[in-house]
Structures are given as structure tokens and as C-alpha cells.
């Protein structure tokens, strides 16, 4: 259950972003559409606890993010929120498998090889597990970054422009993969994008 209430944020005092209230049941998804510069990424960072709002609050599973200490917030994020970024990023010095192990370690979870194996298989990149992820093809990188986001069975998956640099086929793939992964772990999926191609794939959408 994700709830945001009367969120505002300002980078400086001249312009303040105001965001609509969001209330999302478990197992549902939400597409947030909007043009560039309207504060989409800011909203996503607020929901992930990467930024603290000027006013209002974010609540995930009954926990209000703003009440957590910085270290606890980091742990909470690692355990309960999976992030997918526009351009995939990894720890360059590690192989894909080691990246996944690190994600488990940082969330304070057991380093479960079977679980990472399962995720890799569901995304069909098992054969790339010993490769450095930044050397994979773009489609593989996008799948690898989804693997890292869903590995710890998060309650909330936040995706920031996951498809904007992809062609139509890959766009479709990523959208269905995200929905499928969210469904397997019973997570709420929030996708923020300016990419209208995605509109057809989501039940709920709001326009910023």
C-alpha cells in the first residue's frame, strides 16, 4: 500500500513542484505520464525516499518514510523498494552475478544464489551471469537492471523512464517484463515516463 499526501518539493525558492495525492493498493500498477521538466523524477525520488519533501509525506506499508533515520531509510529502501532507471547502471568491477549478490548484501538479506538464479532465468539472461553487465547489449542491460530491482522481492517497484531510449519491440518487452515481475512478487508498480506508447499497457494512469 503506497500513499502520498500533499507532496511539494522545491529545488530553490522560485519554483515549487506540487504533486497530486496517490493511493495505490497492493498488486496494482500506476503509470505517471508527464512532459520533461515537470518534476517526474523528483516525484519518483520522493517516493523512494531519496529526497525529503518540502511538505506532505510518503507512506509505504504503513511506514512513513520521513520518520526513519537516514541509515534505517537506506535499509528500508534496499529491502522494500526496487528502482529501475532510464539508463541501466551497474557496479562496473563486478560480474552480473556479483552485482546481484551485492544487491542482496546491501539490503541486509541472505545471499541467496537460488533466488538470483530464479530471477535471471525469468528474465532469460542466465547465460550472461559471469559477464560484466555494462558490456551486455542494450536489451540485456535493461533486463539485468530489472533483475537487480526485483531481486529482493520489493513491495514497490519504481521505474524512471525505463523505455524512452528503446525501440517499439524492446519497449513492449520491458513493459511486460516489469508487469510480470511485479505480479510474481505481488509488488505495486509505478512507472514514470513521457513515453505514451506505454499508456495502452497500464490500467491506471495519471497525468502530471
Amino acid at each position: 500500500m503506497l500513499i502520498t499526501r500533499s507532496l511539494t518539493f522545491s529545488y530553490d525558492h522560485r519554483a515549487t513542484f506540487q504533486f497530486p495525492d496517490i493511493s495505490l493498493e497492493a498488486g496494482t500498477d500506476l503509470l505517471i505520464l508527464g512532459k520533461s521538466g515537470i518534476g517526474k523524477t523528483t516525484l519518483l525520488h520522493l517516493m523512494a525516499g531519496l529526497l525529503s519533501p518540502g511538505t506532505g509525506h510518503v507512506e509505504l506499508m504503513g511506514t512513513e518514510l520521513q520518520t526513519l533515520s537516514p541509515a534505517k531509510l537506506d535499509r528500508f529502501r534496499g529491502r522494500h523498494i526496487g528502482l529501475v532507471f532510464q539508463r541501466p547502471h551497474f557496479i562496473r568491477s563486478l560480474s552480473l552475478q556479483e552485482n546481484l549478490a551485492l544487491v542482496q548484501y546491501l539490503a541486509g538479506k541472505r545471499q541467496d544464489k537460488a533466488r538470483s538464479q530464479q530471477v535471471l532465468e525469468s528474465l532469460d539472461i542466465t547465460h550472461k551471469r559471469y559477464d560484466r553487465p555494462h558490456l551486455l547489449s542494450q536489451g540485456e542491460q535493461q533486463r539485468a537492471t530489472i533483475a537487480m530491482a526485483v531481486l529482493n522481492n520489493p513491495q514497490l517497484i519504481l521505474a524512471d523512464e525505463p523505455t524512452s531510449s528503446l525501440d517499439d519491440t524492446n519497449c513492449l518487452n520491458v513493459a511486460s517484463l516489469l508487469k510480470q515481475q511485479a505480479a510474481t512478487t505481488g509488488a505495486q508498480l509505478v512507472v514514470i515516463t513521457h513515453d505514451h506508447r506505454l499508456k495502452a499497457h497500464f490500467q491506471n494512469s495519471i497525468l502530471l
Partner: protein
Amino acid sequence: MNIVKLGYKNIADRPLSTLLSLLLLTLGVGMIALLLQVNRHIQQQMENNIRGVDMVVGAKGSPLQLILSAVYHIDAPTGNISLHEAEQLRKNRLVAAGIPLSYGDSYKGYRIVGTDHQYPELYKAPVSNGRLWQEPFEVTIGATIAQNLGLQIGDTFMGTHGMGEGSEIHDEHPYQVVGILGYANAVIDQLILTATESVWEVHHHEEEKSENHPGEENHAHEEADEKHSETTAHDGTPGEEREITAMLIRFRSPMAMIQLPRMVNENTNMQAAVPAYEINRLFNLLGVGVDTLSTIALVIMAVSGLSVFISLYNALKDQQYEMALMRTYGATRWQLVWLVLQEGLLLAGLGFLLGILFSRVGLLLISGLMEARYHYSFSGGEIIREEWQLLVASLVIGLLASLLPAVRAFKINISKTLAYD
């Protein structure tokens, strides 16, 4: 996977800058450790050898040369002194003991020293095999010589005039090995000991030969080391004209230190030198060189610290996004700080280990060189106290070098870093 392993992977992922940092650290640590070890070994050897020798008397000349030749057997003798005069001094009530030494000949580079049985006692060198010499031309050899030349009891050999191997051979008087000493870890391990009479007799015959063939005199005497002293005994006047090269003196009381050296230098034809004082002087002379080298090594270590810093700082610039990413996966600020510090410490620790390895290889090489040249060898490369301090210094350098990058890692703005990439 954990932070330590990630740090190691990160370092391995930038091999060039890691190599440069390690190379500089290795050189700095290695040079300092090598200097420390060489210094320690030389000092140990030097001190081991002057134990029980309060003063050395020999012919007038350089006191340092007298000490180097009479105590350490690494320089040419200053000349000869009258045995009679030396005996007079030995009878002085302030003198507890005096050990006569007559040297100048050698066998395969090892010195043959005519002396009495007090000499092996001085170094507490036990007879490990056979016995001490009794008759002229019987010799008891040091442990290192026995090992290196493979000499055994009953073997005979000819002495060579002077120290060079190509010099004239005293072929009329073969020496016979009657005993082998155990290791004393002192100069005695490298000496061939015999009775003073042997040396007298060798050169007595020499004189006769020279008198018989006056034309050969130049050849016999001047070709050898110019400082080489003949230990001679002239016919018919035993005692009075007999000469030795030097005498090691032990005092009965500290009082003697004040009186005896001055007395000898002013009232006799001999020179007195105090080993402790001369060695101190030698170390002060060497100290300038050692100080210069340590300064260079310290500068290298400082540069290595800078190199570690630049390496980590550049890496952090590239890894800014990775750090932010790790935060989104649940890493705390302190985990990132620890990651950066730990990379610096790992480099420093690794550099220290390689440096110590480097110094030990250097020590081995120097030891081999010393062994071949001076018949001195170093043994034992255990970590000494100063090297533990060096480890601490290396780690402090690693820590300092990673401090600023660590602060930056702590202060990373995740949202901004993620948004502007």
C-alpha cells in the same frame, strides 16, 4: 559479496593506477626496510665483534683502520709493533688481558691470524670438531670457512702473502687443519687461526730467501698490498725484535679508559684505538649517507600516498553514480565511507607487504655480495620493531589518502547524481 570484496574488485578493476600506487609504495617501504635491516645487521655484527675488546694497540696510523683491520679484519693492517712493547703494556696493572694478533696472510681470501687461545675464548667460539692448534702450522678454522671451502680435519693448504688470491704463495710451509670452530656469529667464523709462531716462521724463511736472492726482494714484498705488514723475527735475537700486528686489550676497570689510551699514544711507538669510539665515528660518517637515502625513501612514500589519493579520487569521480546506485540498493553512508577507506588501506597494506618482500630480496643480494667481498654475511630477516612502525606509517598514509574521497562519498547527493546522468 561484501564491502571488502567489492573494494578489492574495484582496485583490481583499475590495474594501471593500482600498479603505480603499489610500485611507489613498494619502493618507499622497501628502501626504508632495507636500510633498517642493513643498519641493524651491520650494527649487530659490529657490536658482536667488539664485545670484550676495550682497546686495540697497533702501529701508528689511522685509528679507524687499526680497528677495522684488527677487530673486523676488513682493512689492511697499519704496520707492526714490537712484541716486547706490547707485552710491557699487557703487564700494566690496569690491563686484564691482551690478545696478540699477527696477520697479513690469507688462504683463498680468508685471513690467517696468528694468536693464542684467548682469541676463540673471547668470542665464545666452541671447538665443534677436532681441537685448537698446539704446534706451529697447525690451524683451527672458523665455521664459515669450513662450510664454504669444504676443509676438513687433516687437510693441508698453503698460505698466500697478502689478501689477494693471485699473490705470492708461501709454498714452503703448508698449514694443517686440526680443528673446526662452531658458529660464534662473529668475525672469528671467517678466520683461520694458528699460533703466532707460524706467522713468524713463514716470514722468517721469507727473509732468508730474500737475503739469498736479493733481486727478488721487490717481487716478494712490494707487489703485495703496500700496507701489508711483515711479521718478522730476526735470527738470534728472539723476543727483543719479534713483532706482532696488533693486540686486543681488555681493561681491568673503567678507569683505564681514561689513562691507558693517552699513555700508549704519548709514551710508546704504538697507537691505541678504542673500538666503541671509532665505530661510533664510522656510523656518524655513514649516517650522512643513510640519512640521505632515508629522506629519498620518505619522499617516495609521500609521493606514493599522493598517488593513492589521486587514484581513489579519480575512481570516485567515475564511481559517483555507482555509489548513488549502491545507496538506492540499501547501502548506508558509512558503508560507502568504509568502502573508500578500505581501498586505501588495502593498497597501503599490500604495498607494505611487497615492500618488505622487496627489502628481503635486497638483503639477500647484499648479504651475498658482502659474503663474497668481505666474508661477512647477514642472517635472519625477521620483522623488527621499526618495521611494525613502518606498517603503521603505511596504513596512516593509506588512510590519509582516502580520507577526502571518503568524505565525498559520505556527502554524495543520491537524487542529484542519479538525475544528472
